[in-house]
């Protein structure tokens, strides 16, 4: 059987199996079977990757024709080229680690088997998204991951707030999907097909209306906005932290939210013809990045900080896409997947040890109690802040250099965002793990290092975060193996990739120096504030001024609520009332009419024989007269 089909089907089979039988099987079996299916997919993806590396062409398999109407022909088909294989490795690899993690994390939960079923379904949908050979498959996977996100965020459904958060995520995603759908419709109209290859071909050979391409790109980006949590459709991501931590790690850090980035990279030919769209992406990404970083500065829930961090880093990726540095964006996507998953899983370990406590003001001094978690979390924090030689440093540097080469003003703001990243991440780190323990006595006794199934993924991800930079080393480190990712993705992004001329040594060193400086400033500043002086973030009542504004997330949620949500609710109520009024009136009017006419007609039935006979005679006369005059 075609390996592509197998890769897609294994998680689906896992879903069906755990969904149907998981309730009756012991936890270990369910967990390991579903993890095993992901592992099998990972091995096969590795196979494909190696196959592509040794020079084979892109893999392709077609299941059947979905739709064939006059010009338009849509197949259910999957493909694996270089870009897809990278995404597949990330999805299945990190997916497998998170499955293993969940076996220990969700232990004892009554919905254990459901969790794994949903996780498998999610991996299936994500694979369909990246492995689809046409826009329809992408859309199918897009919607599927949105669904799984909803299911998993609201996993503990007995809490109504979690359900609301799940709904919020789904609805915001849907708003973005509308833009995506419109973009797809326009693609069909312009290019008469939904397959990637013909569309890109038509664009490269020219003859397409640039206005339409601009519009299509903007609409596709609206879809990406919803899925990847950019302004204005980002508020669902922090609320999505209501779901279990493995969900946050897998979906809202490593895979689903990166679907938007994947979409743009896949359509890079289109975007390179649409400068207006790219401008929009650049500035939206930039604003998102800074705003989210500012909000993250004042959050006190460990997962919320990481959520805003995700939004901020996604903004950075979109900045890279906006200037045309597709490789840099993919590079950051991969490294971000590593260390963000690591950070989330680590926070899960902390929450697990603290017995469910998530407020960092009640933590502290966990270094001695949870060494593995401590060291891996430290590595993750260093990576995200851009410590030199770690993976995050290289990817962020790549982005900054690309931005500098095209828009220096934006570069300045990006540097600011990087600085803020370092500050809020280290704030989180120092407050959570250092200082005296600020929790209750009960929690103190409960503190313990997490079991092996939890720490093993942490270690693996830590190693990847440390060494992940070798994927795309810049020139000044090594000349031979450099820019491996860029070369790898050349078949996809080749012509659109921002051609960043290798800057002269001084310029490059200055850029590097700025990056390192930013890291050092953040590290030292937070260390002095939170470690040495022992500051802890204030309680909610004591916040003031800008601090409170940031802590309240700029009141964006309240803004949405008062405008859109109440507007829709109001219109819904009015509609309901008018509908009731109109429908009730119409129905009663109908019944009144019927009664009236039936009353009239019932007068014909008098029961008098003579009346009947006269009626008969009258009818007969009419008949004969009619006949006569025909």
């Amino acid at each position, binding site marked *: 059987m075609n390996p592509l089909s197998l890769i897609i089907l294994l998680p689906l089979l896992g879903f069906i199996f755990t969904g149907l039988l998981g309730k009756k099987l012991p936890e270990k079996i369910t967990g390991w079977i579903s993890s095993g299916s992901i592992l099998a997919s990972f091995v096969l993806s590795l196979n494909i990757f190696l196959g592509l590396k040794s020079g084979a062409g892109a893999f392709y398999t077609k299941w059947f024709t979905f739709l064939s109407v006059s010009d338009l022909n849509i197949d259910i088909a999957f493909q694996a080229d270089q870009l897809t294989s990278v995404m597949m490795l990330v999805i299945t690899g990190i997916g497998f680690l998170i499955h293993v993690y969940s076996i220990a994390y969700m232990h004892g939960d009554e919905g254990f088997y459901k969790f794994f079923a949903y996780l498998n379904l999610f991996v299936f949908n994500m694979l369909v998204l990246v492995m689809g050979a046409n826009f329809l498959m992408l859309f199918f996977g897009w919607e599927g991951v949105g669904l799984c996100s909803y299911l998993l965020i609201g996993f503990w459904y007995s809490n109504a707030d979690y359900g609301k958060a799940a709904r919020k995520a789904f609805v915001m995603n849907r708003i973005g999907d509308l833009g995506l759908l419109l973009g797809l419709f326009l693609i069909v109209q312009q290019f008469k097909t939904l397959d990637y290859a013909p569309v890109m071909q038509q664009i490269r050979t020219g003859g397409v209306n640039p206005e339409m391409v601009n519009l299509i790109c903007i609409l596709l980006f609206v879809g990406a906005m919803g899925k990847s949590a950019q302004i204005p459709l980002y508020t669902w991501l922090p609320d999505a932290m209501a779901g279990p931590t493995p969900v946050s790690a897998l979906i809202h850090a490593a895979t689903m939210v990166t679907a938007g980035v994947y979409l743009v990279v896949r359509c890079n030919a289109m975007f390179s013809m649409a400068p207006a769209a790219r401008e929009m992406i650049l500035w939206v990404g930039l604003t998102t990045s800074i705003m989210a970083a500012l909000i993250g500065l004042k959050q006190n829930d460990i997962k919320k900080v990481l959520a805003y961090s995700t939004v901020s880093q996604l903004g950075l990726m979109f900045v890279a896409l906006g200037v045309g540095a597709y490789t840099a964006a993919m590079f950051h996507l991969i490294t971000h997947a590593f260390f963000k998953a690591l950070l989330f899983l680590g926070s899960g370990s902390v929450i697990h040890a603290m017995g469910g406590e998530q407020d960092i003001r009640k933590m502290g001094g966990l270094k001695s109690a949870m060494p593995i978690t401590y060291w891996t979390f430290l590595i993750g924090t260093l990576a995200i802040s851009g410590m030199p030689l770690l993976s995050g440093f290289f990817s962020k540097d790549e982005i900054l250099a690309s931005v500098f080469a095209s828009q220096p003003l934006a570069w300045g703001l990006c540097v600011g965002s990087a600085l803020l990243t370092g500050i809020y991440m280290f704030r989180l780190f120092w407050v959570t793990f250092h200082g005296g323990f600020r929790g209750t006595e009960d929690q103190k006794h409960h503190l313990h290092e997490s079991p092996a199934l939890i720490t093993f993924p942490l270690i693996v991800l830590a190693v990847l975060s440390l060494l992940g930079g070798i994927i795309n080393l810049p020139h000044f480190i090594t000349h031979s193996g450099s820019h491996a990712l860029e070369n790898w993705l050349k078949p996809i992004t080749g012509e659109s990739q921002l051609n960043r001329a290798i800057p002269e040594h001084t310029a490059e060193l200055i850029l590097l120096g700025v990056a390192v400086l930013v890291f050092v400033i953040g590290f030292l500043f937070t260390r002095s504030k939170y470690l040495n002086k022992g500051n802890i973030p204030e309680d909610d009542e004591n916040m003031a001024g800008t601090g409170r504004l940031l802590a309240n997330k700029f009141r964006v949620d309240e803004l949405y609520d008062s405008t859109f949500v109440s507007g829709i609710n109001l219109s819904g109520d009015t509609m309901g009332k008018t509908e009731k009024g109109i429908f009730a009136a119409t129905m009663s009017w109908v019944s009144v009419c019927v009664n009236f006419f039936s009353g009239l007609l019932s007068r014909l039935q*008098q029961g008098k024989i003579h009346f009947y006979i006269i009626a008969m*005679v009258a009818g007969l006369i009419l008949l004969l007269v009619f006949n006569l005059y025909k």
Partner: protein
Amino acid sequence: MKPDSIFNALDISHYVYLSCVLFCIGLFGVLMRRNAIVLLMCIELMLNAVNLLFAAFSSYMGDASGQLFVFFIMVVAAAEAAVGLAILVMVYRNTKSTDVGFLNNLKG
């Protein structure tokens, strides 16, 4: 001496008109009279008008089926008269009157 057919001198239309007149007189009786027995009698009159017409046509066309049909109409009329009168007697026993105007319980 066998009689000649009257239709050597007469057209069929005269019998048609005669039959129509009798039928309509019978109909007038049915509509006007409220005594059930007289009602039934007027119905017999209408039937006879039709009989006359059938016999006339049969004689005109030389076909015996017309007269045989009259025969069957008479059969039906006799049966109907018998049953109708039986019903009427039952109604009289219950209402002590033969007025058909009292039989309007089926009104809507």
